[in-house]
């Protein structure tokens, strides 16, 4: 296992304990309800839309009062929202520099195919890329 941030490590372990894909989906559904910072649908704009997702997904990155990274997001499909939640929990409060160097591979380790929604470009990877870039920008700006 790569050296994931601790909260992510825990989540990955949870998924690896699942019996089958259905159970993993159940877990993802659970996480969908655990968004640390839900982006209310009134705040869903063209600007924070994740491109390449078939369902609607919106994500914004912010810095908390301690300079830690925050993901605010939501999606209309639960599996997508679950992924956003996991990512948001995994990096919550992390220094942007660390977020910028995170690998999207943790989803493979969780073994949820939802991440592979075959849009033209992979929606999840697009989101991940966007988050990393934002984090990198925050870094240089800081």
């Amino acid at each position, binding site marked *: 296992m790569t050296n994931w941030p601790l909260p992510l490590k825990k989540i990955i372990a949870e998924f690896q304990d699942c019996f*089958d*894909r*259905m159970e993993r*989906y*159940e877990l993802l*559904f659970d996480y969908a309800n655990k968004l640390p910072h839900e982006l209310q649908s009134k705040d869903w704009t063209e600007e924070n839309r994740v491109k390449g997702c*078939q*369902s609607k997904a919106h994500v914004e990155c912010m810095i908390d009062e301690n300079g830690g990274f925050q993901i605010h997001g939501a999606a*209309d*499909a*639960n*599996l*997508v929202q679950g992924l956003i939640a996991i990512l948001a929990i995994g990096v919550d409060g992390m220094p942007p520099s660390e977020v910028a160097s995170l690998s999207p591979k943790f989803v493979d380790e969780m073994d949820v*195919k*939802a991440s592979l*929604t075959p849009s033209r470009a992979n929606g999840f990877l697009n989101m991940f890329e966007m988050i990393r870039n934002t984090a990198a920008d925050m870094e240089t700006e800081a």
Partner: protein
Amino acid sequence: MGLDLEAIRADFPILSRTMDGGRPLVYLDNAATTQKPKQVIEAMNSYYENTNSNVHRAVHTLAGEATEGYENARTEIAAYFGSPRDHLIFTSGTTEAINLVAYGWARANLSKGDVIVTTEMEHHADIVPWQILSKERGIEIRYIPLERDTLTLDMDAFEIAVKDASLICVVHTSNVLGVRNDVERIIQLSKTKGNRGNGAFVMIDAAQAAPHERINFIELGCDFLALSSHKMGGPTGIGGLFVKPEIMETMDPFISGGDMIETVTLEGSTFQKGPPKFEAGTPRIAEAFGWHAAIKWLSTHNMEEVHEHVSNLARHTAEQMSKISGIKIYGRHDLENCSGVVSFLHEKIHAEDLAHLLDSGGFAVRTGHHCAQPLMEALGVSSTARISFWLYNTQEEANAFVGHLESIVERFG
């Protein structure tokens, strides 16, 4: 009699593939594209392994065999649709076929003030080309609405709209609702009342019909009929447009280049007559061999039985599904001539989630707007989940699907 499903399934190599967790593949996305029998795969193999050569204008043996096979494919595919070979133009599919009507025929024969009538039920392939033409030439498009309660076309509105129309473009069988339109009546009304009684031209999008209904282009009496090979057991990359020859003569060339010309000089060119005029460049040769093989394979089955089979599967499955709490069906499966398509939603579980959850059980199900956003708008939804049956699907698969859907709804609903 009836279909010998075991023998049919044995012809499709992909149907023995196992999915996640060793589950068998239950392929219910046939309206998007059907699987291919081994006879089709082998026909293309054999073409590439024994015959491959560019067609037309060469005298060597391979070129002779390739040309014969290619033109033979045209003859046999046309015959399957009740037509002589010179009625069939090969295209890359239904989409290009409709574009050929828009570019080759409509731009040459319609002008500002003309009216094209189409419907709310259409696939984007039968909407966007007309919108582009409309913008370019000031041709008006009128959409026949879907009756919200019966989910069928508003034929009263059609009877009125047809009077002003020069061209009517209608989908034969919906790729979302499973509804078969009364194309016979639409054509008859178009021919008698269309264009102020002078008769209107009619284009029928038969992409979803041909896989389970035998269509006779000549008897049907429309002017254009658009088709895709990949939705009826044939390969990707090929389809066709049937055109009445006297109308073909009034069409301008569309895609141009080699093989469609008679002569080229620096001053200008003259064109071939008939289908060749619209088939520029190296054609889809292997694909024609493959489509031909699909037609041959389909011909070994009774298409009335095929239709009954897929429509029964859809009807029974829709019935079962509608008993699951929270599931709503979009479409009409009580009609005798319904196709194998069932669209549905769950009141709480997002369609995309549903599809993932179904996929984890081995069930290949599509979700989205199915390239029919205006229809989605009419249904008041942004997308649906959709299953679609073809002749190799079994009642057991349908039952297993319903069972899995039930358990998903219980667990996630």
